[in-house]
């Protein structure tokens, strides 16, 4: 499994990095940390590159390397990775352009096989999409953005599962909230939920939301399969059955102390683009980390 963690600044990326790395450990995943810098006008892009070459000869790293260096040191200081200092390592930070509009960053004197560092420049969604396609990542982890469109674009265009981390209380969750329905993605979401629960040694609340009229036609066919799966994995769980609007109920049950793991919408991309989706609504409104599994 491969996980991509996007960091943007030293100020706001700590929760994303911390939770992201814990999840990566839970999945025993190979992790890449990416910083996407601002888009440079094409008029000046080559000249900026030339200027940055010149800056390198004066021992200056391009913007973004400092953020990646901070991220690496943060993970190392918090024992989230096993970094080694090697005498034969690069004498200074080294950037290698692999010809795919991305730079691989090798920090001076350090080596870590668990984590890769990548620097890109451009529109954040385009670059993350490119990186996910290029690296074949299973999960992309990002901090929650204040921009409403960002969540929409992440869900719509990034071809991997998405974990969105809020800035507050990320380590305070004590249960996994697993909303389930009849869609195909629910089983995969359940598997991801179980792994998170095992990593954090917490239980799972399996939530089924039925329509208000309770006709019985919307009986969840996946419930028994999922509870069986959870039971087998040795994780404690409770079954919750609620009536009403699924988005409202999920947010209500998530409270401030759960991590939500749910499947992505099975609607067609065109419908999703215009109408939105339940995962998107939950992502926009909830105050807890949310993993949307594709």
């Amino acid at each position: 499994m491969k996980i991509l963690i996007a960091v943007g600044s030293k100020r706001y990326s700590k929760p994303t990095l911390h939770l992201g790395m814990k999840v990566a450990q839970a999945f025993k995943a190979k992790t890449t940390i990416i910083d996407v810098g601002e888009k440079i006008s094409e008029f000046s892009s080559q000249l900026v590159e030339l200027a940055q070459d010149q800056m390198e000869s004066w021992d200056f790293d391009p913007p973004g390397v400092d953020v990646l260096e901070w991220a690496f040191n943060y993970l190392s200081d918090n024992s989230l990775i096993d970094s080694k200092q090697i005498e034969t390592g690069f004498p200074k930070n080294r950037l290698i352009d692999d010809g795919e509009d991305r730079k691989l960053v090798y920090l001076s004197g350090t080596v870590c096989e668990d984590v890769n560092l990548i620097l890109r420049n451009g529109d954040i969604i385009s670059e993350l999409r490119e990186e996910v396609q290029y690296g074949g990542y299973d999960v992309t982890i990002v901090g929650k953005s204040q921009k409403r469109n960002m969540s929409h674009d992440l869900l719509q265009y990034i071809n991997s599962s998405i974990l969105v981390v809020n800035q507050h209380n990320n380590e305070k969750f004590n249960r996994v909230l697993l909303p389930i329905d009849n869609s195909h993605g629910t089983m995969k979401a359940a598997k991801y939920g179980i792994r998170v629960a095992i990593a954090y040694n917490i239980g799972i609340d399996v939530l089924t939301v039925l329509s208000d009229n309770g006709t019985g036609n919307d009986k969840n066919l996946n419930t028994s399969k999922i509870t069986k799966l959870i039971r087998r994995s040795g994780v404690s769980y409770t079954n919750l059955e609620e009536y009403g609007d699924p988005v409202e109920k999920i947010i209500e049950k998530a409270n401030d102390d759960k991590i939500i793991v749910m499947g992505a919408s099975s609607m067609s991309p065109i419908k999703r683009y215009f109408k939105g989706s339940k995962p998107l609504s939950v992502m926009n409104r909830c105050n807890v980390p949310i993993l949307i599994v594709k």
Partner: protein
Amino acid sequence: MLGFSNLSLSNFLFWATQKRWFIYAILIGFILFLLPQPTALSQKGFTSIVILITTLILIIKEPIPLPAIAIYILLAQIYGGIDSADGIAKAFMNDAVFFIMGSLMLAVVIIRQGWDSRIALGILKLTGNKTSNIVFGFLSISAVLSSFIGEHTVAAIMLPIGMTLIRFTSSDLSKVKNLASAILFSIAYGCLIGSVGTPSGGGRNVIMINYFQQLNISLSYFEWMIKVYPFVLIQIPIVAWIINHTFKPEYKILDSSVRKLVIKVAKSRNMTGRNTITVMIFFLIFIGWVFFSETFGLGTIALTGVFLYILGGFVRWNDLNKHTHWGVIILFGATISLGTSIRSTGAALWLADQVITVFGSLMEIFPAFSDLIVILTTTAMANILSSSATVAVLGPITMSLVPDMIHIGLVTAVSSAFGYFTAVAAPACTIVYSSGMLKPKDFLKIGWRIGFVSIFLLMVYVNTYWVIIN
């Protein structure tokens, strides 16, 4: 849906989102075509204005790569019936495009020569360790150098010197925020100010010279300097003063950091014979620009220099190829061809007439009002577009505004360098911004002050000094 997989639908939606400004531009173009054509404007003129508007949208928003915009301009002109393919191709490649090509290549050669250490020592010898003097030194050296070797080249050379001085003062940027802003803006704005001093200072100047030549107007390298260089010299102390007072540096004296920088550059490699030859070749290029540019063209001479550098093995073709943005060159060729079409189809004259219809009475009472309109329009466009593209598309229009074409053409070229407000206006600003030490709001904070002062100064300058020397 219709047999398309969710992935392909998602890819299509992503494409449409990314290219939405291209779609808007084309829609706007179609809507404009449906509007009734002004009677005083020919069909070709109308078409060229529609292409101009759609092109401006594409250049500002960059929804497609620059070379694709260039191809769009060329195709739209040919399919729009403005001229034959041969006619468009002739206007596409000219001396101005040669110059932009040569200038971008010369930047690669010059930056690789290690002149930065010597420039750093030169600045510090001149200025000493007083911060306000250092800001003045960075600004004046950047201005003088960029007059001759191009703003982008100077910005790339000066940036690491400035950043090293900032780093030696404090490694914590938050403690030297104002100092960093003062030094970096002195580099960027110095480059902008100086770039108009001579025709070789920037591609936009050569584009204007090219428009002059198309109208059989002669303006030599020296004549340009006599007209414009005093304005560069007037601006230098004023802009340095504004920078020092907008970003009051945290340290008035940079004693230890200056010493550290001197020690660092003193350790750098000595001037070699090869470095001397590169300087000599550049000096020959400069002599060629001054004395032979009217005969051979600025671009041809710049390319001669590039040829000599390649021939002498001072630069590898791979290096030139890697760092020369061919897309920019093609785009400038295309915008120049569009500018030529705007003039030849009568669209420039029609647009100028519209301006005269609106402001004609004011222009009659106050002749300088036409200068103000041109300066404000050019400054606004240069800050959202690019200075060279602004001159390429605006030049033919502004030159149709008043009878004195050299006057208004030079006003257009000079004010296209007033890209103080945004990081994208000029390569020098983008290069300095790429250091990561400046924020967009810093450009606005200082840009409006310098912009306002520069507009005022230019108004006074062109209506006093130019009147006297004419």
